[in-house]
């Protein structure tokens, strides 16, 4: 099939960019979106034009490197998929496709479709871990994790840090990303000792750079791992509880603790 692409080209961070139109001809419906761009790039190089810069690596939808706005939707029209796993069979011959980089203050454009997502790492640095040094671990089966809790943690841990949630959010908010990491660790028994300090630290750093959540649900719709906005509610709850119990308090039990409830409800 033949397509017309309108691609954002921008030389460097502080220059202005614009949409440039390219033709993609004889595109195989079985090719992935990135493979389609590969072919366009090969022709550009042959013509002596600089290829379109886009980030990509594993091309299996797991590394989180790739990502672009395709016709106004992060990762394109098919939900639950990263750009590398979006196949051209979802487009029609003659389609116009607009391709833009992620846009957010926290994701400055580096060149063309590549943006700097280092701000997400900063959120992890703020507390997205369990403070255990190598060698400090107890025998693995000493820590019992109910299957439903492990599954819930896994649902959150599936996040690939691609930044689509931020890109799609009308507020440029990173709530889905942050809440997924908060929940991944916060629902597990191993994550309890730091649960409330972690959420406060991560939210604070997140808010320095990103917008706030107004519950549009756009992030969930484009997340390649289909992470639920329920995790955002959970993060809000943990944050509120943390504020009421004070940073170091270990005396008050959590106001809401639904982990056990979850286990009975979900299985």
């Amino acid at each position, binding site marked *: 099939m033949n397509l017309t692409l309108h691609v954002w080209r921008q030389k460097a961070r502080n220059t202005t960019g614009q949409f440039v139109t390219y033709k993609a001809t004889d595109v195989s419906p079985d090719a992935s979106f990135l493979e389609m761009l590969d072919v366009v790039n090969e022709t550009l190089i042959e013509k002596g034009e600089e290829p379109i810069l886009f980030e990509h690596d594993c091309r299996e939808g797991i590394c989180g490197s790739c990502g672009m706005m395709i016709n106004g939707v992060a990762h394109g029209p098919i939900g639950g998929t990263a750009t590398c796993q979006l196949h051209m069979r979802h487009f029609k011959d003659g389609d116009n496709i*607009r391709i833009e980089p992620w846009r957010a203050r926290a994701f400055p454009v580096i060149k063309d479709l590549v943006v700097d997502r280092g701000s997400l790492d900063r959120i992890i640095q703020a507390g997205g871990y369990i403070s255990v040094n190598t060698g400090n671990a107890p025998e693995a089966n000493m820590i019992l994790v109910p299957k439903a809790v492990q599954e819930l943690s896994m649902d959150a841990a599936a996040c690939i840090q691609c930044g689509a949630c931020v890109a799609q959010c009308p507020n440029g*908010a990173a709530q889905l990303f942050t809440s997924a990491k908060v929940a991944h660790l916060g629902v597990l028994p191993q994550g309890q000792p730091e649960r409330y300090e972690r959420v406060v630290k991560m939210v604070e750093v997140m808010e320095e750079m990103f917008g706030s959540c107004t519950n549009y649900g756009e992030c969930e719709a484009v997340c390649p791992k289909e992470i639920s906005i329920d995790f955002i509610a959970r993060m809000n709850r943990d944050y509120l509880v943390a504020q009421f119990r004070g940073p170091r308090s270990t005396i008050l039990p959590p106001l809401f603790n639904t982990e056990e409830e979850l286990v009975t409800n979900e299985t």
Partner: protein
Amino acid sequence: MSWLTNFYRSAVGKKAVMAVTGVFLFGWIFAHMVGNLKLYLGAEHLNEYAKWLRVMGSPAMPNSSLLWLARAALVVATWLHVQAATQLTLMNRAARPIAYGEREYPAATYAARTMRWGGVIIILFVIYHLLHLTLGVHVNPAPFIEGDPYHNVVAGFQIWWVSAFYIIANLALGLHLYHGLWSMFQSLGLNTPKFNAWRRNFATAFAAIITAANISFPLAVMLGFVR
């Protein structure tokens, strides 16, 4: 109290404030709607109810004191709700300085996307509504009789554009509640798998009930059911 200011300084905290003040405002709107249903019982009932609002709480408290307390709380709640919304909106605008060339919304509802403008319409309407029916300022040609709200309502709604404004504002309120009532559960982190489906149903049901009831008043007057 530093934790409270810290808490409000965060966006998550502001959203919680919006949720709590939103619940309060919703409760008031609901009560207001229920009270207004007395319009259908006739002038006597409605006026009686209006009078009761003023003596509510007495003799334990002076007349109108509860009403003024409620009014003060409403003003504070509205102020906080609007202030937080404004601050968050500014924060969110700053978070995306460059807009997309093209933009689709695979999930966001119309209601969610119109919260801010809907809020502005509602505020403007509330001001008009207070001038019209509480303070009796001549913001429209209908005559205002102190102590006879039934008359004031009916006379006001007989003017087509007053009714039209009222209806539009209540449709905006309906959309605002449709998203807001669901959203507050998210903001406060009230979610469990069993409960989640009900959050949407709750928001839809109450948004529909309040809008339908509120809109029925001007319609009833215009159509001559209430005169």
